[in-house]
Protein backbone atom coordinates (compact mmCIF):
# COMPACT_ATOMS: atom_id res chain seq x y z
CA UNK A 1 0.00 0.00 0.00
CA UNK A 2 1.42 3.36 -0.94
CA UNK A 3 1.47 6.24 1.45
CA UNK A 4 -1.23 7.92 -0.58
CA UNK A 5 -3.43 4.86 -0.44
CA UNK A 6 -2.87 4.66 3.28
CA UNK A 7 -3.88 8.25 4.05
CA UNK A 8 -6.81 8.10 1.68
CA UNK A 9 -7.90 4.68 2.78
CA UNK A 10 -7.51 3.19 6.26
CA UNK A 11 -6.25 6.32 7.97
CA UNK A 12 -9.04 8.35 6.49
CA UNK A 13 -11.59 5.82 7.69
CA UNK A 14 -10.18 5.77 11.20
CA UNK A 15 -10.02 9.55 11.30
CA UNK A 16 -13.59 9.88 10.07
CA UNK A 17 -14.79 7.39 12.65
CA UNK A 18 -13.04 9.27 15.44
CA UNK A 19 -14.49 12.48 14.09
CA UNK A 20 -18.04 11.20 13.97
CA UNK A 21 -18.03 9.35 17.26
CA UNK A 22 -16.22 12.20 18.97
CA UNK A 23 -18.69 14.77 17.75
CA UNK A 24 -21.67 12.69 18.81
CA UNK A 25 -20.12 11.93 22.18
CA UNK A 26 -19.28 15.53 22.88
CA UNK A 27 -22.59 17.02 21.77
CA UNK A 28 -24.46 14.23 23.52
CA UNK A 29 -22.38 14.70 26.65
CA UNK A 30 -23.24 18.37 26.82
CA UNK A 31 -26.95 17.75 26.34
CA UNK A 32 -26.99 14.94 28.89
CA UNK A 33 -25.69 17.23 31.61
CA UNK A 34 -29.28 18.35 31.62
CA UNK A 35 -31.05 21.50 32.55
CA UNK A 36 -33.44 22.03 35.39
CA UNK A 37 -36.90 22.60 34.11
CA UNK A 38 -37.87 26.25 34.34
CA UNK A 39 -41.19 26.50 36.17
CA UNK A 40 -41.71 30.25 36.07
CA UNK A 41 -44.85 31.01 34.04
CA UNK A 42 -43.61 31.53 30.49
CA UNK A 43 -44.38 34.55 28.37
CA UNK A 44 -43.10 33.12 25.14
CA UNK A 45 -42.08 29.79 23.73
CA UNK A 46 -38.75 28.29 24.71
CA UNK A 47 -38.71 26.04 21.65
CA UNK A 48 -39.31 28.95 19.33
CA UNK A 49 -36.66 30.84 21.24
CA UNK A 50 -34.22 28.01 20.61
CA UNK A 51 -34.86 28.30 16.90
CA UNK A 52 -34.96 32.06 16.77
CA UNK A 53 -31.80 32.34 18.82
CA UNK A 54 -30.07 30.18 16.29
CA UNK A 55 -31.23 32.21 13.35
CA UNK A 56 -30.96 35.63 14.95
CA UNK A 57 -27.29 35.29 15.67
CA UNK A 58 -26.43 34.78 12.04
CA UNK A 59 -27.30 38.38 11.43
CA UNK A 60 -25.11 41.03 13.00
CA UNK A 61 -26.86 43.77 14.92
CA UNK A 62 -26.61 47.12 13.24
CA UNK A 63 -25.22 49.00 16.18
CA UNK A 64 -22.31 46.61 16.59
CA UNK A 65 -21.76 45.77 12.94
CA UNK A 66 -19.81 48.92 12.25
CA UNK A 67 -17.43 48.49 15.14
CA UNK A 68 -16.74 44.94 14.16
CA UNK A 69 -17.04 45.13 10.37
CA UNK A 70 -13.58 43.76 9.68
CA UNK A 71 -14.24 40.77 11.85
CA UNK A 72 -17.58 40.09 10.24
CA UNK A 73 -16.20 40.25 6.73
CA UNK A 74 -13.26 38.02 7.56
CA UNK A 75 -15.40 35.61 9.55
CA UNK A 76 -18.16 35.21 7.03
CA UNK A 77 -15.74 35.26 4.12
CA UNK A 78 -13.67 32.48 5.58
CA UNK A 79 -16.48 30.22 6.72
CA UNK A 80 -18.71 30.50 3.69
CA UNK A 81 -15.87 30.18 1.22
CA UNK A 82 -14.53 27.16 3.05
CA UNK A 83 -17.91 25.49 3.03
CA UNK A 84 -18.30 26.08 -0.69
CA UNK A 85 -14.76 24.89 -1.24
CA UNK A 86 -15.25 21.66 0.64
CA UNK A 87 -18.45 20.78 -1.12
CA UNK A 88 -18.21 22.08 -4.64
CA UNK A 89 -14.58 21.92 -5.73
CA UNK A 90 -14.07 19.38 -8.48
CA UNK A 91 -11.40 17.30 -6.72
CA UNK A 92 -13.51 17.18 -3.57
CA UNK A 93 -16.59 16.07 -5.44
CA UNK A 94 -14.57 13.35 -7.08
CA UNK A 95 -13.27 12.25 -3.70
CA UNK A 96 -16.70 12.29 -2.09
CA UNK A 97 -18.19 10.26 -4.91
CA UNK A 98 -15.28 7.92 -4.91
CA UNK A 99 -14.97 7.27 -1.20
CA UNK A 100 -18.10 8.34 0.59
CA UNK A 101 -21.44 8.64 -1.14
CA UNK A 102 -22.41 8.83 -4.73
CA UNK A 103 -24.05 12.22 -4.65
CA UNK A 104 -24.21 14.55 -7.58
CA UNK A 105 -22.85 17.85 -6.36
CA UNK A 106 -22.65 20.75 -8.79
CA UNK A 107 -19.07 21.38 -9.73
CA UNK A 108 -17.54 24.85 -9.64
CA UNK A 109 -15.53 26.03 -12.60
CA UNK A 110 -11.80 26.19 -11.97
CA UNK A 111 -11.77 29.96 -11.61
CA UNK A 112 -14.56 29.75 -9.04
CA UNK A 113 -12.58 27.20 -7.12
CA UNK A 114 -9.51 29.44 -7.06
CA UNK A 115 -11.51 32.51 -6.15
CA UNK A 116 -13.25 30.86 -3.20
CA UNK A 117 -9.89 29.54 -2.06
CA UNK A 118 -8.48 33.06 -2.08
CA UNK A 119 -11.43 34.43 -0.12
CA UNK A 120 -11.12 31.63 2.36
CA UNK A 121 -7.39 32.15 2.82
CA UNK A 122 -7.79 35.90 3.14
CA UNK A 123 -10.48 35.42 5.79
CA UNK A 124 -8.54 32.88 7.80
CA UNK A 125 -5.35 34.90 7.72
CA UNK A 126 -7.19 38.01 8.84
CA UNK A 127 -8.87 36.12 11.66
CA UNK A 128 -5.61 34.76 12.88
CA UNK A 129 -3.58 37.94 12.60
CA UNK A 130 -6.37 39.68 14.45
CA UNK A 131 -5.93 37.09 17.17
CA UNK A 132 -2.28 37.94 17.62
CA UNK A 133 -2.42 41.69 17.27
CA UNK A 134 -5.04 42.78 19.74
CA UNK A 135 -4.74 42.86 23.53
CA UNK A 136 -8.21 41.38 24.07
CA UNK A 137 -7.54 38.59 21.63
CA UNK A 138 -4.12 37.88 23.06
CA UNK A 139 -5.57 37.66 26.53
CA UNK A 140 -8.40 35.29 25.75
CA UNK A 141 -6.70 33.07 23.16
CA UNK A 142 -5.15 29.77 24.12
CA UNK A 143 -3.19 27.03 22.40
CA UNK A 144 -6.30 25.36 21.17
CA UNK A 145 -7.27 28.47 19.22
CA UNK A 146 -3.91 28.64 17.53
CA UNK A 147 -3.65 24.95 16.82
CA UNK A 148 -7.15 24.94 15.36
CA UNK A 149 -6.40 27.91 13.11
CA UNK A 150 -3.09 26.53 11.98
CA UNK A 151 -4.35 23.03 11.33
CA UNK A 152 -7.15 24.42 9.23
CA UNK A 153 -4.70 26.68 7.48
CA UNK A 154 -2.44 23.72 6.75
CA UNK A 155 -5.36 21.73 5.38
CA UNK A 156 -6.10 24.58 3.02
CA UNK A 157 -2.47 25.26 2.22
CA UNK A 158 -1.59 21.67 1.39
CA UNK A 159 -4.72 21.52 -0.72
CA UNK A 160 -3.66 24.59 -2.59
CA UNK A 161 -0.14 23.27 -3.06
CA UNK A 162 -1.58 20.13 -4.64
CA UNK A 163 -3.59 22.11 -7.16
CA UNK A 164 -1.52 20.98 -10.09
CA UNK A 165 -2.73 17.46 -9.36
CA UNK A 166 0.41 15.99 -10.79
CA UNK A 167 2.20 14.68 -7.73
CA UNK A 168 0.79 11.92 -5.57
CA UNK A 169 2.97 13.11 -2.74
CA UNK A 170 1.31 16.51 -2.57
CA UNK A 171 -2.10 14.89 -2.61
CA UNK A 172 -1.07 12.50 0.13
CA UNK A 173 0.25 15.37 2.19
CA UNK A 174 -3.09 17.15 1.90
CA UNK A 175 -4.95 14.01 2.92
CA UNK A 176 -2.63 13.43 5.85
CA UNK A 177 -3.33 16.88 7.24
CA UNK A 178 -7.04 16.34 6.64
CA UNK A 179 -6.86 13.14 8.67
CA UNK A 180 -5.04 14.86 11.50
CA UNK A 181 -7.60 17.65 11.40
CA UNK A 182 -10.47 15.18 11.60
CA UNK A 183 -8.93 13.49 14.60
CA UNK A 184 -8.16 16.76 16.37
CA UNK A 185 -11.58 18.23 15.70
CA UNK A 186 -13.85 16.58 18.30
CA UNK A 187 -11.45 17.29 21.16
CA UNK A 188 -10.95 20.92 20.37
CA UNK A 189 -12.68 24.22 19.90
CA UNK A 190 -13.16 23.37 16.25
CA UNK A 191 -16.26 21.73 17.71
CA UNK A 192 -17.86 25.15 17.69
CA UNK A 193 -19.14 24.14 14.28
CA UNK A 194 -21.53 21.87 16.16
CA UNK A 195 -21.85 23.42 19.60
CA UNK A 196 -22.98 26.78 18.27
CA UNK A 197 -26.52 25.57 17.86
CA UNK A 198 -26.59 24.48 21.50
CA UNK A 199 -25.34 27.72 22.93
CA UNK A 200 -27.41 29.94 20.67
CA UNK A 201 -30.37 27.69 21.24
CA UNK A 202 -30.00 27.53 25.00
CA UNK A 203 -29.86 31.24 25.53
CA UNK A 204 -32.49 31.66 22.84
CA UNK A 205 -34.74 29.37 24.82
CA UNK A 206 -34.02 31.08 28.13
CA UNK A 207 -34.85 34.48 26.72
CA UNK A 208 -37.56 33.18 24.47
CA UNK A 209 -39.52 32.07 27.52
CA UNK A 210 -39.37 35.62 28.75
CA UNK A 211 -40.80 36.78 25.49
CA UNK A 212 -37.70 38.35 24.08
CA UNK A 213 -35.23 37.41 21.42
CA UNK A 214 -31.66 38.45 21.99
Amino acid at each position, binding site marked *: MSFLEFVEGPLFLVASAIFLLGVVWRVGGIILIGRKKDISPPKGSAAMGFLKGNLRHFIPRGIFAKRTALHLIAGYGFHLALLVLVLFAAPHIAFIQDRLVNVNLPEMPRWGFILTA*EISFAGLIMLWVRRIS*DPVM*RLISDWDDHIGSWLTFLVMLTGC*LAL*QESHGFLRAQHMLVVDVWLIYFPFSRLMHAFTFFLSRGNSGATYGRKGINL
Partner: protein
Amino acid sequence: MNNLLRMVAVLLVLLMGVTASQAQSVRPPGNAVNLDDGIEPGPPNTLGDLSDSDFWRNYRGGDPNDPQQIIGPRPDGVVLTTTGQHWRALRENYIRKYAGWAPLIVIGILAVFYVLIGPMRIKSGRSGKTLSRFNLTQRVSHWFMAAVFILLGISGLIILLGRPLIAPFLGKEVNSIMTSAAMQGHNLFGPLFIVALVWMFIKFVRGNFFQWVDLKWIFKLGGFFGGHVSSHEFNFGEKSWFWMVTIVGTVISVTGVLLLFPWLVEDLRILQLSTILHGLGAVGLISVLFGHIYVGTIGMEGSLDSMLKGEVDEHWAKEHHDLWYEKVTGKSASETAKEEEPS
Protein backbone atom coordinates in the same frame (compact mmCIF):
# COMPACT_ATOMS: atom_id res chain seq x y z
CA MET B 1 4.92 54.55 -20.59
CA ASN B 2 6.49 53.37 -23.78
CA ASN B 3 9.45 55.61 -23.13
CA LEU B 4 9.85 54.18 -19.70
CA LEU B 5 9.85 50.69 -21.08
CA ARG B 6 12.39 51.75 -23.60
CA MET B 7 14.70 53.13 -20.96
CA VAL B 8 14.46 49.99 -18.95
CA ALA B 9 15.23 48.06 -22.08
CA VAL B 10 18.34 50.08 -22.75
CA LEU B 11 19.50 49.47 -19.24
CA LEU B 12 18.86 45.82 -19.67
CA VAL B 13 20.78 45.65 -22.86
CA LEU B 14 23.74 47.40 -21.33
CA LEU B 15 23.64 44.88 -18.59
CA MET B 16 23.51 42.14 -21.13
CA GLY B 17 26.53 43.51 -22.89
CA VAL B 18 28.44 43.17 -19.68
CA THR B 19 27.03 39.75 -19.26
CA ALA B 20 28.19 38.63 -22.65
CA SER B 21 31.77 39.77 -22.19
CA GLN B 22 32.01 38.26 -18.76
CA ALA B 23 30.42 35.02 -19.73
CA GLN B 24 33.45 34.28 -21.83
CA SER B 25 36.05 34.96 -19.19
CA VAL B 26 34.30 33.20 -16.35
CA ARG B 27 34.43 29.48 -16.16
CA PRO B 28 31.15 28.00 -14.99
CA PRO B 29 31.38 26.42 -11.54
CA GLY B 30 30.97 22.70 -11.23
CA ASN B 31 27.33 22.71 -10.34
CA ALA B 32 26.29 25.51 -12.68
CA VAL B 33 23.46 24.81 -15.02
CA ASN B 34 24.75 24.30 -18.51
CA LEU B 35 23.28 27.01 -20.65
CA ASP B 36 23.89 25.15 -23.86
CA ASP B 37 21.75 22.28 -22.73
CA GLY B 38 19.46 21.29 -25.49
CA ILE B 39 20.45 24.04 -27.87
CA GLU B 40 21.08 22.52 -31.24
CA PRO B 41 24.02 23.82 -33.23
CA GLY B 42 22.88 25.84 -36.25
CA PRO B 43 22.64 24.20 -39.63
CA PRO B 44 25.94 23.67 -41.41
CA ASN B 45 27.20 25.82 -44.20
CA THR B 46 23.89 26.12 -46.00
CA LEU B 47 24.63 29.42 -47.63
CA GLY B 48 27.99 28.60 -49.03
CA ASP B 49 30.26 31.55 -48.37
CA LEU B 50 28.47 33.02 -45.46
CA SER B 51 29.70 31.83 -42.12
CA ASP B 52 27.18 30.34 -39.68
CA SER B 53 27.28 33.37 -37.57
CA ASP B 54 26.66 35.64 -40.48
CA PHE B 55 23.78 33.48 -41.41
CA TRP B 56 22.21 33.72 -38.00
CA ARG B 57 22.86 37.40 -37.77
CA ASN B 58 20.98 37.96 -40.99
CA TYR B 59 18.32 35.59 -40.04
CA ARG B 60 17.51 37.50 -36.95
CA GLY B 61 17.87 40.77 -38.77
CA GLY B 62 20.73 42.87 -37.61
CA ASP B 63 22.69 44.08 -34.66
CA PRO B 64 21.93 42.36 -31.35
CA ASN B 65 22.90 45.45 -29.43
CA ASP B 66 20.41 47.62 -31.20
CA PRO B 67 17.69 48.31 -28.65
CA GLN B 68 15.17 48.85 -31.42
CA GLN B 69 15.28 45.22 -32.17
CA ILE B 70 14.75 44.09 -28.70
CA ILE B 71 11.80 46.03 -27.64
CA GLY B 72 10.77 48.44 -30.37
CA PRO B 73 8.43 47.61 -33.19
CA ARG B 74 9.56 44.42 -34.80
CA PRO B 75 11.56 45.18 -37.96
CA ASP B 76 10.15 43.52 -41.01
CA GLY B 77 11.74 40.35 -41.99
CA VAL B 78 12.93 39.41 -38.55
CA VAL B 79 12.21 35.77 -38.17
CA LEU B 80 13.80 35.02 -34.86
CA THR B 81 13.82 37.04 -31.63
CA THR B 82 16.81 36.28 -29.57
CA THR B 83 15.95 38.28 -26.50
CA GLY B 84 14.92 35.01 -24.92
CA GLN B 85 18.56 34.08 -24.88
CA HIS B 86 19.49 37.27 -23.13
CA TRP B 87 16.64 36.87 -20.71
CA ARG B 88 17.71 33.38 -19.95
CA ALA B 89 21.31 34.36 -19.54
CA LEU B 90 20.42 37.15 -17.18
CA ARG B 91 18.12 34.99 -15.12
CA GLU B 92 20.39 31.97 -14.92
CA ASN B 93 23.72 33.69 -14.59
CA TYR B 94 22.86 36.59 -12.39
CA ILE B 95 19.53 36.52 -10.68
CA ARG B 96 19.52 32.85 -9.87
CA LYS B 97 23.13 32.90 -8.89
CA TYR B 98 23.22 35.97 -6.71
CA ALA B 99 19.65 36.52 -5.54
CA GLY B 100 20.03 34.30 -2.52
CA TRP B 101 22.99 36.30 -1.31
CA ALA B 102 21.20 39.60 -0.94
CA PRO B 103 19.05 38.64 2.04
CA LEU B 104 21.94 36.75 3.59
CA ILE B 105 24.17 39.78 3.34
CA VAL B 106 21.49 41.95 4.96
CA ILE B 107 21.13 39.42 7.75
CA GLY B 108 24.89 39.37 8.17
CA ILE B 109 25.07 43.14 8.43
CA LEU B 110 22.26 43.14 10.97
CA ALA B 111 23.99 40.47 13.01
CA VAL B 112 27.22 42.43 13.05
CA PHE B 113 25.33 45.59 13.95
CA TYR B 114 23.53 43.78 16.74
CA VAL B 115 26.73 42.39 18.18
CA LEU B 116 28.77 45.56 17.88
CA ILE B 117 26.26 48.27 18.62
CA GLY B 118 23.32 46.36 20.01
CA PRO B 119 19.65 47.06 20.18
CA MET B 120 18.18 50.47 20.86
CA ARG B 121 16.68 50.44 24.29
CA ILE B 122 14.13 52.81 25.69
CA LYS B 123 16.67 54.98 27.48
CA SER B 124 14.42 56.25 30.22
CA GLY B 125 12.87 52.82 30.73
CA ARG B 126 9.23 52.06 30.22
CA SER B 127 6.83 54.55 31.71
CA GLY B 128 3.97 52.08 31.95
CA LYS B 129 1.73 54.65 30.33
CA THR B 130 0.77 54.10 26.75
CA LEU B 131 -0.40 56.01 23.72
CA SER B 132 -2.42 54.46 21.00
CA ARG B 133 -0.53 54.27 17.78
CA PHE B 134 -2.26 51.95 15.33
CA ASN B 135 -5.88 50.91 15.36
CA LEU B 136 -7.01 47.35 14.88
CA THR B 137 -7.63 47.72 11.16
CA GLN B 138 -4.14 49.08 10.65
CA ARG B 139 -2.66 46.24 12.63
CA VAL B 140 -4.64 43.59 10.81
CA SER B 141 -3.82 45.08 7.42
CA HIS B 142 -0.13 45.09 8.37
CA TRP B 143 -0.07 41.49 9.50
CA PHE B 144 -2.22 40.40 6.62
CA MET B 145 0.37 41.89 4.32
CA ALA B 146 3.17 40.33 6.32
CA ALA B 147 1.55 36.88 6.21
CA VAL B 148 0.84 36.99 2.50
CA PHE B 149 4.26 38.43 1.78
CA ILE B 150 6.02 35.70 3.70
CA LEU B 151 4.02 32.97 1.97
CA LEU B 152 4.83 34.51 -1.38
CA GLY B 153 8.44 35.07 -0.44
CA ILE B 154 9.02 31.47 0.53
CA SER B 155 7.21 30.01 -2.45
CA GLY B 156 8.86 32.51 -4.79
CA LEU B 157 12.31 31.68 -3.54
CA ILE B 158 11.64 27.99 -4.03
CA ILE B 159 10.62 28.61 -7.62
CA LEU B 160 13.63 30.80 -8.25
CA LEU B 161 16.28 28.90 -6.37
CA GLY B 162 14.97 25.35 -6.46
CA ARG B 163 17.23 24.36 -9.32
CA PRO B 164 20.53 25.53 -7.85
CA LEU B 165 19.70 24.94 -4.20
CA ILE B 166 17.26 22.06 -3.93
CA ALA B 167 17.88 19.88 -6.95
CA PRO B 168 21.59 19.28 -6.36
CA PHE B 169 21.03 18.27 -2.74
CA LEU B 170 17.63 16.65 -2.52
CA GLY B 171 17.34 15.51 -6.08
CA LYS B 172 15.36 16.55 -9.08
CA GLU B 173 12.26 14.65 -8.03
CA VAL B 174 12.00 16.57 -4.76
CA ASN B 175 12.69 19.80 -6.56
CA SER B 176 9.99 19.04 -9.05
CA ILE B 177 7.45 18.40 -6.30
CA MET B 178 8.44 21.45 -4.34
CA THR B 179 8.41 23.67 -7.37
CA SER B 180 5.02 22.42 -8.44
CA ALA B 181 3.70 23.09 -4.95
CA ALA B 182 5.38 26.47 -4.69
CA MET B 183 4.11 27.51 -8.09
CA GLN B 184 0.51 26.71 -7.18
CA GLY B 185 0.82 28.44 -3.84
CA HIS B 186 2.52 31.45 -5.36
CA ASN B 187 -0.16 31.85 -8.01
CA LEU B 188 -2.92 31.54 -5.45
CA PHE B 189 -1.51 34.02 -2.96
CA GLY B 190 -0.36 36.52 -5.55
CA PRO B 191 -3.72 38.24 -5.96
CA LEU B 192 -4.04 38.51 -2.18
CA PHE B 193 -0.82 40.51 -2.18
CA ILE B 194 -2.47 43.11 -4.39
CA VAL B 195 -5.40 43.33 -2.00
CA ALA B 196 -3.01 43.62 0.92
CA LEU B 197 -0.95 46.27 -0.82
CA VAL B 198 -3.89 48.51 -1.61
CA TRP B 199 -5.37 48.06 1.83
CA MET B 200 -2.13 48.75 3.59
CA PHE B 201 -1.42 51.77 1.43
CA ILE B 202 -4.77 53.30 2.32
CA LYS B 203 -4.33 52.57 6.01
CA PHE B 204 -0.78 53.91 6.32
CA VAL B 205 -0.26 56.60 3.72
CA ARG B 206 -1.20 59.38 6.11
CA GLY B 207 1.92 60.43 7.95
CA ASN B 208 4.23 58.84 5.43
CA PHE B 209 4.88 61.90 3.28
CA PHE B 210 8.26 63.58 3.36
CA GLN B 211 8.77 66.20 6.06
CA TRP B 212 11.74 68.48 6.59
CA VAL B 213 12.85 66.86 9.83
CA ASP B 214 13.47 63.77 7.77
CA LEU B 215 16.59 65.45 6.41
CA LYS B 216 18.04 65.57 9.91
CA TRP B 217 17.20 61.92 10.33
CA ILE B 218 19.22 61.16 7.25
CA PHE B 219 22.20 63.21 8.43
CA LYS B 220 22.14 61.57 11.82
CA LEU B 221 21.89 58.14 10.23
CA GLY B 222 18.59 57.51 11.93
CA GLY B 223 20.14 57.59 15.35
CA PHE B 224 21.23 54.02 14.95
CA PHE B 225 24.75 55.07 15.83
CA GLY B 226 23.67 57.26 18.74
CA GLY B 227 22.26 60.76 19.08
CA HIS B 228 18.68 61.90 19.27
CA VAL B 229 16.66 62.21 16.11
CA SER B 230 13.38 64.02 15.91
CA SER B 231 10.54 62.64 13.91
CA HIS B 232 6.84 62.86 13.35
CA GLU B 233 4.57 59.82 13.30
CA PHE B 234 6.93 58.00 10.97
CA ASN B 235 10.65 58.62 10.63
CA PHE B 236 12.51 58.63 7.38
CA GLY B 237 13.45 54.98 7.68
CA GLU B 238 9.85 53.93 8.08
CA LYS B 239 8.77 56.21 5.28
CA SER B 240 11.38 54.76 2.98
CA TRP B 241 10.17 51.30 3.80
CA PHE B 242 6.58 52.32 3.24
CA TRP B 243 7.29 53.81 -0.17
CA MET B 244 9.55 50.99 -1.12
CA VAL B 245 6.83 48.50 -0.31
CA THR B 246 4.34 50.61 -2.21
CA ILE B 247 6.39 51.23 -5.33
CA VAL B 248 8.26 47.97 -5.60
CA GLY B 249 5.13 46.17 -4.49
CA THR B 250 3.24 47.77 -7.35
CA VAL B 251 5.89 46.70 -9.81
CA ILE B 252 5.78 43.18 -8.45
CA SER B 253 2.01 43.20 -8.61
CA VAL B 254 1.78 44.43 -12.18
CA THR B 255 4.47 42.12 -13.47
CA GLY B 256 2.97 39.29 -11.46
CA VAL B 257 -0.41 39.78 -13.06
CA LEU B 258 1.20 39.71 -16.48
CA LEU B 259 2.95 36.47 -15.67
CA LEU B 260 -0.21 34.96 -14.30
CA PHE B 261 -2.25 36.00 -17.33
CA PRO B 262 0.34 36.03 -20.15
CA TRP B 263 -2.28 36.48 -22.83
CA LEU B 264 -2.78 40.03 -21.62
CA VAL B 265 0.19 41.18 -23.70
CA GLU B 266 1.20 40.22 -27.19
CA ASP B 267 4.87 40.86 -27.02
CA LEU B 268 6.80 38.07 -25.40
CA ARG B 269 9.56 40.47 -24.50
CA ILE B 270 7.33 42.25 -22.03
CA LEU B 271 6.90 38.98 -20.21
CA GLN B 272 10.61 38.41 -20.21
CA LEU B 273 11.14 41.81 -18.73
CA SER B 274 8.41 41.08 -16.22
CA THR B 275 10.09 38.02 -14.80
CA ILE B 276 13.29 39.97 -14.36
CA LEU B 277 11.65 42.93 -12.64
CA HIS B 278 9.44 40.64 -10.59
CA GLY B 279 12.40 38.68 -9.32
CA LEU B 280 14.66 41.64 -8.68
CA GLY B 281 11.93 43.57 -6.92
CA ALA B 282 10.98 40.64 -4.75
CA VAL B 283 14.53 39.83 -3.78
CA GLY B 284 15.09 43.49 -2.98
CA LEU B 285 12.03 43.68 -0.76
CA ILE B 286 12.80 40.43 0.95
CA SER B 287 16.28 41.66 1.76
CA VAL B 288 15.14 44.96 3.18
CA LEU B 289 12.37 43.16 5.02
CA PHE B 290 14.96 41.60 7.30
CA GLY B 291 16.07 45.07 8.26
CA HIS B 292 12.46 45.97 8.92
CA ILE B 293 11.90 42.88 11.02
CA TYR B 294 15.06 43.61 12.94
CA VAL B 295 14.02 47.14 13.85
CA GLY B 296 10.49 45.97 14.54
CA THR B 297 11.55 43.28 16.98
CA ILE B 298 14.89 42.83 18.71
CA GLY B 299 16.46 45.93 17.22
CA MET B 300 14.36 48.49 18.99
CA GLU B 301 12.80 47.93 22.35
CA GLY B 302 9.11 48.70 22.44
CA SER B 303 8.47 48.86 18.69
CA LEU B 304 6.57 45.64 18.41
CA ASP B 305 3.98 46.85 20.91
CA SER B 306 2.56 49.15 18.29
CA MET B 307 1.75 46.23 16.04
CA LEU B 308 0.74 43.72 18.70
CA LYS B 309 -1.27 45.93 21.02
CA GLY B 310 -1.77 49.10 19.08
CA GLU B 311 -0.29 50.98 22.00
CA VAL B 312 3.24 52.18 22.59
CA ASP B 313 4.96 53.25 25.73
CA GLU B 314 5.05 57.00 26.21
CA HIS B 315 8.80 56.98 26.66
CA TRP B 316 9.23 55.07 23.43
CA ALA B 317 7.13 57.68 21.70
CA LYS B 318 9.15 60.53 23.19
CA GLU B 319 12.45 59.02 22.20
CA HIS B 320 11.62 57.92 18.70
CA HIS B 321 8.73 60.05 17.58
CA ASP B 322 8.91 63.16 19.72
CA LEU B 323 7.02 65.40 17.31
CA TRP B 324 4.23 62.84 17.03
CA TYR B 325 4.18 62.55 20.81
CA GLU B 326 3.76 66.29 21.10
CA LYS B 327 0.99 66.30 18.57
CA VAL B 328 -1.11 63.55 20.14
CA THR B 329 -0.58 64.49 23.77
CA GLY B 330 -0.26 68.25 23.42
CA LYS B 331 2.68 68.06 25.81
CA SER B 332 6.27 68.93 25.11
CA ALA B 333 8.44 65.88 24.76
CA SER B 334 11.57 67.42 26.20
CA GLU B 335 9.89 69.23 29.09
CA THR B 336 7.91 66.28 30.33
CA ALA B 337 11.05 64.22 30.10
CA LYS B 338 12.75 66.66 32.50
CA GLU B 339 9.76 66.84 34.74
CA GLU B 340 9.68 63.15 35.18
CA GLU B 341 13.35 62.66 35.73
CA PRO B 342 13.53 63.29 39.48
CA SER B 343 10.77 60.85 40.26
